[in-house]
């Protein structure tokens, strides 16, 4: 496949899902920006440039899906920690359910190719 096409395909798939990946990473514990970004970029193909996550984090905060608090760090200046709000948790649960249905449907179509 042409690289440009592959890139735009991934970009499109990432667009709708990345914010929920961020919410999922925050499900069990608050995290600070760098920690969050590095965990995301370890997932293959999810993040091409780490810096682009920060505008997304700002957006999630303004939408009330996460809140931030400052905590002392063992080394260096205090860190801004992100944690899920109740609304963020609901959004994540909803996405989770819909994602399962969606991927099941797509998987089935991709595997059987429309044959009965």
């Amino acid at each position, binding site marked *: 496949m042409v690289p440009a096409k592959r890139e735009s395909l991934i970009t499109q798939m990432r667009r709708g899902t990345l914010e929920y990946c961020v919410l999922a990473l925050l499900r069990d514990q608050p995290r*600070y*920006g*760098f*920690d969050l*970004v590095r965990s995301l*970029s370890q997932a293959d193909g999810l993040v*091409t*440039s*780490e*810096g*682009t996550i*920060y*505008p*997304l*984090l*700002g*957006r999630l905060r*303004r939408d009330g899906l996460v809140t931030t608090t400052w905590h002392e760090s063992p*080394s*260096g*200046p205090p*860190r*801004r920690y992100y944690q899920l709000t109740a609304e963020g948790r609901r959004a994540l649960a909803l996405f989770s359910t819909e994602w399962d249905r969606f991927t099941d449907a797509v998987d089935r179509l991709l595997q059987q190719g429309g044959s009965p």
Partner: protein
Amino acid sequence: MTTEVDALIARYLQDLESQLGDLPANRRQELLDEVHAHIAAARADLDLETEADVRTMLERLGDPADIAAEARERSGVQARPARPTTPWLEIATVVLLVIPFLGWILGAVLVWLSRLWTTRDKLIGTVAGLSWLLGGLGTVMVSAGGPVGQPGVDVGTTGSNPLELILVVAPLVLPVAAAIYLGLRLRRRAGAPAATG
């Protein structure tokens, strides 16, 4: 060594700051703080910091232009190149080209300040706006070179009449024609992004 690395990082942050220029000040500061903290945390993670390490870290962070584009998209700020503003300069130029003499001169000058017209458009506007100068010059030349003191029997006199007519009428018509032409060109360009020249 350390200064080299510091300079690299300073340049990166400066570049990012200027790329974020059209974001509201508080968003811009928040983002700069976050990227700054990211860099500090990444550096703290490195055991032995080399220049190559720092370069890799900045590469992973990504092109400041990409971060700025994402920030604009996520905060609903329009990208700078999209400017659906009214082209006042061009409208003024077109209007001026219809007003004799002073308007023609100003129009011929203003047309060059536009970013929407091409050089060819501008030349047409200038020549048309100043055509009365050429026409006036021509008229003087024709009457000077014409049949002096020989009343209308000569063939040359009848031949010079249409020419004189053109020289008198053209300066009045050409600026208006150019104004219409430039107006049409402007309408066509209105949907397209601004020319770079």
